[in-house]
Protein backbone atom coordinates (compact mmCIF):
# COMPACT_ATOMS: atom_id res chain seq x y z
CA UNK A 1 0.00 0.00 0.00
CA UNK A 2 1.41 3.38 -0.96
CA UNK A 3 1.58 6.41 1.23
CA UNK A 4 -1.42 7.98 -0.53
CA UNK A 5 -3.53 4.86 -0.41
CA UNK A 6 -3.09 4.90 3.31
CA UNK A 7 -4.51 8.39 3.56
CA UNK A 8 -7.37 7.73 1.23
CA UNK A 9 -8.49 4.61 2.98
CA UNK A 10 -8.44 6.11 6.46
CA UNK A 11 -10.39 9.08 5.27
CA UNK A 12 -13.03 7.01 3.52
CA UNK A 13 -13.38 4.55 6.35
CA UNK A 14 -13.71 7.08 9.09
CA UNK A 15 -17.46 7.39 9.20
CA UNK A 16 -17.24 8.07 12.94
CA UNK A 17 -15.65 11.43 12.16
CA UNK A 18 -18.52 12.25 9.81
CA UNK A 19 -21.00 11.20 12.48
CA UNK A 20 -19.36 13.45 15.02
CA UNK A 21 -19.37 16.48 12.71
CA UNK A 22 -23.04 15.98 11.84
CA UNK A 23 -23.94 15.57 15.50
CA UNK A 24 -22.02 18.64 16.50
CA UNK A 25 -24.02 20.75 14.07
CA UNK A 26 -27.48 19.34 14.70
CA UNK A 27 -27.10 19.28 18.47
CA UNK A 28 -25.93 22.90 18.53
CA UNK A 29 -28.86 23.87 16.32
CA UNK A 30 -31.40 22.04 18.47
CA UNK A 31 -29.98 23.43 21.70
CA UNK A 32 -30.28 26.89 20.28
CA UNK A 33 -33.92 26.30 19.39
CA UNK A 34 -34.65 24.92 22.84
CA UNK A 35 -33.18 27.93 24.51
CA UNK A 36 -35.47 30.21 22.52
CA UNK A 37 -38.46 31.85 24.22
CA UNK A 38 -41.78 30.00 24.40
CA UNK A 39 -43.47 32.41 22.04
CA UNK A 40 -41.01 31.71 19.20
CA UNK A 41 -42.97 28.92 17.43
CA UNK A 42 -46.21 30.94 17.53
CA UNK A 43 -44.43 34.04 16.33
CA UNK A 44 -42.90 32.07 13.46
CA UNK A 45 -46.36 30.94 12.44
CA UNK A 46 -47.73 34.49 12.55
CA UNK A 47 -44.88 35.82 10.44
CA UNK A 48 -45.44 33.04 7.96
CA UNK A 49 -49.16 33.84 7.76
CA UNK A 50 -48.48 37.51 7.06
CA UNK A 51 -46.08 36.66 4.26
CA UNK A 52 -48.57 34.21 2.80
CA UNK A 53 -51.10 37.03 2.49
CA UNK A 54 -48.88 38.59 -0.15
CA UNK A 55 -46.74 35.85 -1.62
CA UNK A 56 -47.47 32.23 -2.36
CA UNK A 57 -44.85 30.46 -0.36
CA UNK A 58 -44.14 27.15 1.36
CA UNK A 59 -43.39 26.93 5.05
CA UNK A 60 -39.94 25.53 4.38
CA UNK A 61 -39.00 28.62 2.37
CA UNK A 62 -39.17 30.73 5.49
CA UNK A 63 -36.53 30.36 8.13
CA UNK A 64 -36.89 32.22 11.39
CA UNK A 65 -34.19 31.86 13.99
CA UNK A 66 -33.32 33.60 17.17
CA UNK A 67 -29.65 33.77 17.94
CA UNK A 68 -28.66 34.58 21.49
CA UNK A 69 -25.34 36.31 21.08
CA UNK A 70 -25.02 37.02 24.75
CA UNK A 71 -27.09 38.14 27.74
CA UNK A 72 -27.74 41.56 26.24
CA UNK A 73 -28.15 40.83 22.56
CA UNK A 74 -30.41 38.49 20.63
CA UNK A 75 -30.72 38.61 16.87
CA UNK A 76 -33.91 37.58 15.13
CA UNK A 77 -33.04 36.35 11.68
CA UNK A 78 -35.71 36.11 9.02
CA UNK A 79 -34.76 34.35 5.84
CA UNK A 80 -37.26 34.07 3.03
CA UNK A 81 -36.64 32.42 -0.30
CA UNK A 82 -39.11 33.93 -2.77
CA UNK A 83 -40.34 31.71 -5.54
CA UNK A 84 -39.39 32.51 -9.16
CA UNK A 85 -41.40 35.43 -10.57
CA UNK A 86 -42.39 33.57 -13.70
Amino acid at each position, binding site marked *: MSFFDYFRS*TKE*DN*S*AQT*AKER*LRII*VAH*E*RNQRSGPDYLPAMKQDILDVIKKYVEIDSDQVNVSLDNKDEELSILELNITFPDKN
Partner: protein
Amino acid sequence: MAKVIVVTSGKGGVGKTTSSAAIGTGLALRGHKTVIIDFDIGLRNLDLIMGCERRVVYDFVNVIKGESNLKQSLIKDKRVDTLFVLPASQTRDKDALSKEGVAKVLEDLAEEGFEFIICDSPAGIETGAIMALYFADEAIVTTNPEVSSVRDSDRILGMLASKSKRAEQGLEPVKEHLLLTRYNPERVKRGDMLSVEDVQDILAIPILGVIPESPAVLKASNSGEPVIYDSESDAGQAYADAVSRLIGEEMPLRFLEEEKKGLFSRLFGG
Protein backbone atom coordinates in the same frame (compact mmCIF):
# COMPACT_ATOMS: atom_id res chain seq x y z
CA MET B 1 -33.10 10.31 52.35
CA ALA B 2 -34.18 8.45 49.25
CA LYS B 3 -32.39 9.26 46.01
CA VAL B 4 -34.54 9.07 42.89
CA ILE B 5 -32.53 8.08 39.80
CA VAL B 6 -34.08 7.88 36.35
CA VAL B 7 -32.56 5.68 33.66
CA THR B 8 -33.54 7.44 30.45
CA SER B 9 -32.53 7.78 26.79
CA GLY B 10 -35.13 9.12 24.41
CA LYS B 11 -34.31 6.48 21.82
CA GLY B 12 -35.68 2.98 22.35
CA GLY B 13 -33.74 -0.23 22.77
CA VAL B 14 -30.46 1.31 23.89
CA GLY B 15 -30.22 -0.61 27.17
CA LYS B 16 -32.27 1.26 29.79
CA THR B 17 -33.92 -1.81 31.27
CA THR B 18 -30.69 -3.82 31.17
CA SER B 19 -28.94 -0.94 32.97
CA SER B 20 -31.72 -0.34 35.51
CA ALA B 21 -31.65 -4.02 36.47
CA ALA B 22 -27.85 -4.20 36.66
CA ILE B 23 -27.33 -0.94 38.54
CA GLY B 24 -30.27 -1.45 40.90
CA THR B 25 -29.01 -4.92 41.73
CA GLY B 26 -25.48 -3.60 42.16
CA LEU B 27 -26.62 -0.98 44.67
CA ALA B 28 -28.59 -3.57 46.63
CA LEU B 29 -25.61 -5.96 46.63
CA ARG B 30 -23.68 -3.20 48.36
CA GLY B 31 -26.27 -3.15 51.10
CA HIS B 32 -28.40 -0.22 49.98
CA LYS B 33 -32.14 -0.71 50.20
CA THR B 34 -33.16 -0.29 46.57
CA VAL B 35 -36.32 -0.44 44.49
CA ILE B 36 -36.49 -0.51 40.70
CA ILE B 37 -39.72 0.84 39.23
CA ASP B 38 -40.84 -0.06 35.71
CA PHE B 39 -42.36 3.09 34.17
CA ASP B 40 -42.94 1.41 30.82
CA ILE B 41 -46.71 1.12 31.20
CA GLY B 42 -48.18 -1.39 28.79
CA LEU B 43 -44.77 -2.83 27.89
CA ARG B 44 -43.62 -4.40 31.11
CA ASN B 45 -40.15 -5.91 30.70
CA LEU B 46 -38.16 -5.24 33.82
CA ASP B 47 -39.83 -8.24 35.52
CA LEU B 48 -38.35 -10.57 32.88
CA ILE B 49 -34.87 -9.09 33.10
CA MET B 50 -35.05 -9.36 36.90
CA GLY B 51 -36.41 -12.90 36.70
CA CYS B 52 -39.52 -12.20 38.77
CA GLU B 53 -42.16 -12.30 36.04
CA ARG B 54 -44.10 -15.14 37.64
CA ARG B 55 -44.41 -13.36 40.95
CA VAL B 56 -46.20 -10.26 39.65
CA VAL B 57 -49.60 -9.91 41.30
CA TYR B 58 -50.23 -6.19 41.60
CA ASP B 59 -48.45 -3.43 39.73
CA PHE B 60 -47.55 0.26 39.79
CA VAL B 61 -50.92 1.34 38.37
CA ASN B 62 -52.82 -0.74 40.93
CA VAL B 63 -50.97 1.12 43.70
CA ILE B 64 -51.67 4.50 42.18
CA LYS B 65 -55.35 3.69 41.77
CA GLY B 66 -55.55 2.41 45.33
CA GLU B 67 -56.44 -1.13 44.20
CA SER B 68 -53.53 -2.56 46.16
CA ASN B 69 -51.18 -1.20 48.76
CA LEU B 70 -47.51 -0.65 48.23
CA LYS B 71 -46.39 -3.63 50.31
CA GLN B 72 -48.56 -6.02 48.31
CA SER B 73 -47.23 -4.72 45.02
CA LEU B 74 -43.50 -4.66 45.72
CA ILE B 75 -41.76 -7.87 44.66
CA LYS B 76 -38.93 -8.83 46.95
CA ASP B 77 -35.90 -10.10 45.05
CA LYS B 78 -35.01 -13.75 45.66
CA ARG B 79 -31.24 -13.17 45.60
CA VAL B 80 -30.64 -9.95 47.56
CA ASP B 81 -32.89 -9.03 50.43
CA THR B 82 -32.36 -5.29 50.07
CA LEU B 83 -33.82 -5.30 46.55
CA PHE B 84 -37.41 -4.80 45.38
CA VAL B 85 -39.16 -4.43 42.04
CA LEU B 86 -42.34 -2.48 41.32
CA PRO B 87 -43.62 -3.84 38.00
CA ALA B 88 -45.43 -1.85 35.31
CA SER B 89 -48.94 -2.80 34.40
CA GLN B 90 -49.34 -4.78 31.22
CA THR B 91 -52.70 -3.72 29.90
CA ARG B 92 -53.77 -0.32 31.12
CA ASP B 93 -53.64 2.85 29.14
CA LYS B 94 -50.50 4.94 29.22
CA ASP B 95 -52.20 7.83 30.97
CA ALA B 96 -52.78 5.76 34.09
CA LEU B 97 -49.85 7.52 35.76
CA SER B 98 -50.48 10.93 37.28
CA LYS B 99 -47.87 13.20 38.83
CA GLU B 100 -49.79 13.20 42.12
CA GLY B 101 -50.03 9.41 42.07
CA VAL B 102 -46.34 8.92 41.32
CA ALA B 103 -45.38 11.51 43.92
CA LYS B 104 -47.36 9.63 46.58
CA VAL B 105 -45.73 6.29 45.72
CA LEU B 106 -42.25 7.86 45.85
CA GLU B 107 -43.01 9.45 49.22
CA ASP B 108 -44.24 6.15 50.62
CA LEU B 109 -41.13 4.36 49.33
CA ALA B 110 -38.92 6.93 51.02
CA GLU B 111 -40.87 6.40 54.21
CA GLU B 112 -40.25 2.65 53.90
CA GLY B 113 -36.55 3.46 54.14
CA PHE B 114 -35.53 2.99 50.53
CA GLU B 115 -32.20 4.65 49.80
CA PHE B 116 -32.31 4.35 46.02
CA ILE B 117 -35.36 4.51 43.78
CA ILE B 118 -34.42 3.58 40.22
CA CYS B 119 -36.93 4.59 37.56
CA ASP B 120 -36.69 2.58 34.34
CA SER B 121 -38.06 5.01 31.75
CA PRO B 122 -39.96 4.08 28.61
CA ALA B 123 -38.51 5.22 25.28
CA GLY B 124 -39.62 8.49 23.71
CA ILE B 125 -39.99 12.03 24.97
CA GLU B 126 -43.72 11.89 25.62
CA THR B 127 -45.77 11.70 28.82
CA GLY B 128 -44.39 8.34 29.95
CA ALA B 129 -40.76 9.43 29.72
CA ILE B 130 -41.55 12.79 31.35
CA MET B 131 -43.34 11.01 34.18
CA ALA B 132 -40.28 8.82 34.77
CA LEU B 133 -37.85 11.74 34.87
CA TYR B 134 -40.07 14.31 36.59
CA PHE B 135 -39.10 13.51 40.19
CA ALA B 136 -35.49 12.58 39.50
CA ASP B 137 -32.59 13.78 41.62
CA GLU B 138 -30.15 12.16 39.21
CA ALA B 139 -30.38 10.88 35.65
CA ILE B 140 -28.48 8.10 33.97
CA VAL B 141 -28.61 9.06 30.31
CA THR B 142 -28.19 5.78 28.49
CA THR B 143 -26.64 6.26 25.08
CA ASN B 144 -25.35 4.07 22.26
CA PRO B 145 -22.39 5.32 20.19
CA GLU B 146 -24.61 6.08 17.26
CA VAL B 147 -26.00 9.35 15.81
CA SER B 148 -29.71 9.04 16.56
CA SER B 149 -29.12 7.84 20.09
CA VAL B 150 -26.72 10.70 20.87
CA ARG B 151 -29.13 13.26 19.45
CA ASP B 152 -32.03 11.84 21.46
CA SER B 153 -29.90 11.87 24.60
CA ASP B 154 -29.30 15.56 24.05
CA ARG B 155 -33.04 16.13 23.75
CA ILE B 156 -33.55 14.25 27.01
CA LEU B 157 -30.94 16.51 28.63
CA GLY B 158 -33.08 19.40 27.43
CA MET B 159 -36.13 17.82 29.09
CA LEU B 160 -34.26 17.32 32.35
CA ALA B 161 -33.31 20.97 32.30
CA SER B 162 -36.83 22.22 31.59
CA LYS B 163 -39.50 19.62 32.39
CA SER B 164 -38.28 18.04 35.62
CA LYS B 165 -39.64 19.01 39.02
CA ARG B 166 -36.23 20.37 39.95
CA ALA B 167 -36.29 22.61 36.89
CA GLU B 168 -39.86 23.74 37.43
CA GLN B 169 -39.24 24.62 41.03
CA GLY B 170 -35.89 26.24 40.41
CA LEU B 171 -34.07 23.75 42.64
CA GLU B 172 -30.57 22.47 42.10
CA PRO B 173 -30.59 20.84 38.62
CA VAL B 174 -30.88 17.09 38.12
CA LYS B 175 -27.43 15.52 38.34
CA GLU B 176 -26.66 14.03 34.94
CA HIS B 177 -24.58 10.94 34.18
CA LEU B 178 -23.63 9.55 30.80
CA LEU B 179 -23.79 5.77 30.46
CA LEU B 180 -22.42 4.64 27.13
CA THR B 181 -23.66 1.15 26.30
CA ARG B 182 -23.11 -1.40 23.54
CA TYR B 183 -19.62 -0.03 23.01
CA ASN B 184 -17.43 -1.86 20.54
CA PRO B 185 -13.76 -0.85 20.94
CA GLU B 186 -12.73 -2.72 17.81
CA ARG B 187 -15.11 -0.70 15.65
CA VAL B 188 -14.10 2.52 17.38
CA LYS B 189 -10.49 1.76 16.51
CA ARG B 190 -11.44 1.10 12.91
CA GLY B 191 -13.14 4.50 12.80
CA ASP B 192 -16.67 3.33 12.16
CA MET B 193 -18.07 3.91 15.64
CA LEU B 194 -18.15 7.08 17.75
CA SER B 195 -15.65 6.92 20.61
CA VAL B 196 -16.29 7.71 24.29
CA GLU B 197 -14.48 11.01 23.79
CA ASP B 198 -16.64 11.86 20.76
CA VAL B 199 -19.88 11.29 22.65
CA GLN B 200 -18.61 13.12 25.71
CA ASP B 201 -17.55 16.04 23.52
CA ILE B 202 -21.04 16.34 22.10
CA LEU B 203 -23.12 15.76 25.23
CA ALA B 204 -20.72 17.37 27.70
CA ILE B 205 -21.85 15.53 30.83
CA PRO B 206 -19.73 13.43 33.21
CA ILE B 207 -19.34 9.78 32.34
CA LEU B 208 -20.69 7.10 34.68
CA GLY B 209 -19.55 4.12 32.68
CA VAL B 210 -18.88 2.46 29.37
CA ILE B 211 -20.57 -0.92 28.90
CA PRO B 212 -19.13 -2.98 26.08
CA GLU B 213 -21.31 -4.80 23.58
CA SER B 214 -21.33 -8.23 25.13
CA PRO B 215 -22.90 -11.64 24.62
CA ALA B 216 -23.23 -11.80 28.42
CA VAL B 217 -26.18 -9.37 28.25
CA LEU B 218 -28.35 -11.69 26.17
CA LYS B 219 -27.33 -14.63 28.30
CA ALA B 220 -28.35 -12.71 31.40
CA SER B 221 -31.73 -11.78 29.99
CA ASN B 222 -32.32 -15.38 28.87
CA SER B 223 -31.93 -16.57 32.42
CA GLY B 224 -33.51 -13.59 34.19
CA GLU B 225 -30.37 -12.75 36.16
CA PRO B 226 -29.12 -9.18 35.88
CA VAL B 227 -25.78 -9.17 34.04
CA ILE B 228 -23.98 -7.68 37.04
CA TYR B 229 -24.03 -11.18 38.59
CA ASP B 230 -21.87 -12.39 35.71
CA SER B 231 -18.75 -11.06 37.36
CA GLU B 232 -16.54 -12.90 34.88
CA SER B 233 -17.99 -10.95 31.99
CA ASP B 234 -16.81 -7.58 30.68
CA ALA B 235 -20.34 -6.11 30.82
CA GLY B 236 -20.87 -7.38 34.38
CA GLN B 237 -17.63 -5.80 35.54
CA ALA B 238 -18.32 -2.58 33.68
CA TYR B 239 -21.70 -2.28 35.44
CA ALA B 240 -20.07 -2.98 38.81
CA ASP B 241 -17.63 -0.13 38.13
CA ALA B 242 -20.53 2.16 37.19
CA VAL B 243 -22.25 1.37 40.49
CA SER B 244 -19.06 2.28 42.36
CA ARG B 245 -18.88 5.62 40.56
CA LEU B 246 -22.55 6.26 41.24
CA ILE B 247 -21.88 6.08 44.97
CA GLY B 248 -18.89 8.34 44.64
CA GLU B 249 -15.92 6.00 44.27
CA GLU B 250 -13.21 6.87 41.78
CA MET B 251 -12.67 4.19 39.15
CA PRO B 252 -10.71 4.32 35.92
CA LEU B 253 -12.73 3.38 32.82
CA ARG B 254 -12.12 -0.13 31.54
CA PHE B 255 -12.90 -2.08 28.37
CA LEU B 256 -12.12 0.86 26.10
CA GLU B 257 -9.54 -1.12 24.18
CA GLU B 258 -9.83 -4.37 22.30
CA GLU B 259 -9.02 -7.08 24.71
CA LYS B 260 -5.59 -8.51 24.12
CA LYS B 261 -5.28 -12.12 25.11
CA GLY B 262 -3.48 -12.54 28.38
CA LEU B 263 -2.91 -8.88 29.05
CA PHE B 264 -5.85 -8.62 31.37
CA SER B 265 -4.73 -11.40 33.64
CA ARG B 266 -1.15 -10.17 33.59
CA LEU B 267 -2.23 -6.70 34.70
CA PHE B 268 -4.75 -7.71 37.27
CA GLY B 269 -3.16 -10.91 38.46
CA GLY B 270 -6.14 -13.10 37.48
